[in-house]
Every structure is written in structure tokens, then in C-alpha cells.
């Protein structure tokens, strides 16, 4: 029993060693620092409790999936029970690490649906491949590939529209025309 406990601790420590940094980044990209801190503690607890279910090979996408549920429940809880507190927290200046330099891209990204944004974030920021995104979102890899392809096209289209409103439109209409 004792050796089983030791082995469990060792495995948990090893997984945490591998995922602690990317999980913090994942959370800070999507939540305020205090919320990210709370969520991290919850995610670790879930990882500890469900260690046996965690994939041994590449556990990070699975951990992101836990993070997704944790953040969703956190936002809901904040909305339901502490609307005022939440508003005050939002009003507090957030310690954003880096101001975005590419404002055009940031604006184009913000114009996409939340689903598209999240797919693109997981792809570009978390650097996940479609099969890993599928684990994080609990959907099939095929669905991810299709949706990611569409999300990228929509982002590119938004960027064209922001650059050249008319040209973007013409291009959209004339996309299938032979060169």
C-alpha cells in the first residue's frame, strides 16, 4: 500500500513537472491571474484524483480538457454567485504580460465566434495538432480538422476585409475564378 502510494505520488509529480508550465500559460491566456490561480489548484486536484484515467502518453491535451471544464464552471459560478465581485475584479487593471503588437490580427480574431477563437488559440498558442485538440475539446479529430480549416479561412477573410474592405469582398466573390 505504501509503495503504491509512493508510486502514485511519483507519477503525479512527473506529470505535473511536464504540464505545470503549459497549464499556467493555458489558464492565463483565458482568465485573470486570480482566476487562473484558483483554476490551477482545481485542475491539479482533478489530475490527482483521476491519475489512473490520464493518458500515459502525452497527458497535456487531456489536462487542457480538464482546464476547459474548470474555467467554464468557474465563469458560471462567478456569474451566478458573485456578479458584483466579478465585475469589480474585471475593473481592476489586469497585469497583462505583453500588449498585443498586431492589433489588426487581434481585432480580426475577436470578430470570430468563440468556438473559432478557441480552436485557433489551441492550434497556435498551445501548439496542439488536431488530434490533440480533439482530446482537449472532447470531439473527434475529423471534426477538429474541418472546423479548424474553416476557422483559419474565416480569420484570413477577416484580415483581408480589415486590410482592404472592398478588395476583400471582391476576392471573396472571385475566389473560384481562374487566375
Amino acid at each position, binding site marked *: 500500500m505504501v509503495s503504491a502510494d509512493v508510486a502514485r505520488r511519483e507519477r503525479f509529480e512527473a506529470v505535473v513537472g511536464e504540464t505545470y508550465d503549459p497549464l499556467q500559460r493555458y489558464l492565463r491566456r483565458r482568465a485573470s491571474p486570480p482566476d487562473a490561480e484558483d483554476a490551477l489548484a482545481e485542475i491539479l486536484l482533478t489530475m490527482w484524483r483521476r491519475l489512473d484515467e490520464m493518458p500515459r502518453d502525452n497527458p497535456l491535451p487531456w489536462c487542457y480538457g480538464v482546464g476547459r471544464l474548470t474555467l467554464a464552471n468557474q465563469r458560471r459560478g462567478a456569474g451566478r454567485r458573485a456578479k458584483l465581485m466579478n465585475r469589480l475584479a474585471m475593473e481592476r487593471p489586469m497585469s497583462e504580460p*505583453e500588449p498585443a503588437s498586431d492589433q489588426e490580427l487581434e481585432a480580426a480574431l475577436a470578430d470570430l465566434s468563440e468556438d473559432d477563437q478557441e480552436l485557433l488559440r489551441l492550434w497556435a498558442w498551445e501548439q496542439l495538432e488536431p488530434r490533440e485538440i480533439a482530446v482537449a475539446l472532447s470531439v473527434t479529430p475529423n*471534426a477538429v480538422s474541418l472546423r479548424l480549416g474553416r476557422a483559419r479561412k474565416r480569420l484570413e477573410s477577416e484580415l483581408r476585409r480589415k486590410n482592404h474592405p472592398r478588395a476583400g469582398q471582391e476576392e471573396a466573390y472571385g475566389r473560384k475564378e481562374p487566375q
Partner: protein
Amino acid sequence: MSDELRNRLQSIDPMAPGVPTESVTSESSRRLLEETMAIEVGAQASDAARTGRGRWYLAVAAALALVFGGFAVFSGGGKPTGQPLELALGSSNAMASCIQFSVEILKDMPVAFEATAVDVSDGKVTLDVDHWFSGGDAESVTLNATVGSPALIGSVDFVEGEQYLITATNGTVNACGFSGPATPELRSAFEEAFPAS
């Protein structure tokens, strides 16, 4: 894959690799990990199973058949939308007899949430979701009784301001002990069944 777009997106990553994070070996990180590993795994679960089983087997013997437009949110494999759900309470013949409550069966429920009844009127219950255990992220769920079935609402005894734990399978809310008032016992069972949530 267009690497150019991916690279450009990385340039607006607020937590790009150069931005520091808390080290796993820092004092606060170590404390957090030790606190986490101090939690005994399994003890709470078996307690919940023991207290939950018998009671819920006897609790409610009705089933609420649900047909709701938003069910694709759960069954389609897509990302949840967060849109309010409208559920219809149908006839009670969806489940002729009750399956004995067990956490093992609860684990397989594709839809499970805790919610507060905010409005209970004739044939209609509006619930604000407090916590999704599985299968969705709607903020609000409305149960609409079809003609002739308002008694079903009574069988679960919805009261405004009270919290409920609800599961559904294949569009059917299970009232046979798998849904009901959010007692500590039932909540423990839900937490055991859905530890990731």
C-alpha cells in the same frame, strides 16, 4: 497548415514562451502540490456510494421524457454553445421501471448538471445552471411540461430557490434517483461520478 498564420497568431500570444510562469519547484508550488497529494483518493467516493445508493433507489419512480431542440449541443460532439436550453417534459412512459442507483451508472450519464429552480409555474420550471458535470454549458434550462404531465414536475418536487441535480440520457431526464433535490448525498455521488468537472 498555413504556418504563416500560425506564426502570426503566436505573435499575439499574451503568454508566449518568454513570459515567465511560476516554477514547479517554488515554495508556493510545492505547497500546492503537497496539499493536493494529501487528499486521500477514493475514501470520499466510497462513502458517497454507500450513503447514496439505498436512499435514491426509493426516492422517485417517475421519468421525465425530454425532447429539446438544444440536445444536439450534447449529442453532436460539438463544443457547447452556452445558449439557454429549452426542455420539454413529456409523458412518463420513457422509463417503465427504475434502475437501482449506482455511481457506476451515474458516471455514464451524458448530461448532468446542478441547477437552481428560479421559476416554477404551471407546467414549467426554469433552472439556472450552477454547475455542469457533463454534457453542456448552458446557463439556463427550462423544463416545459407537455399537456397532461404537469404531475411529473410534482414528482421531482421543484421549489423556487432550491437546488437540483439532474441527469438525462438520450433526451430523457432520469428521475429514478438519478435526478432530484441536491442533497449532500446526491452531490457527493455526482462529484464522485464526474471528478473532472
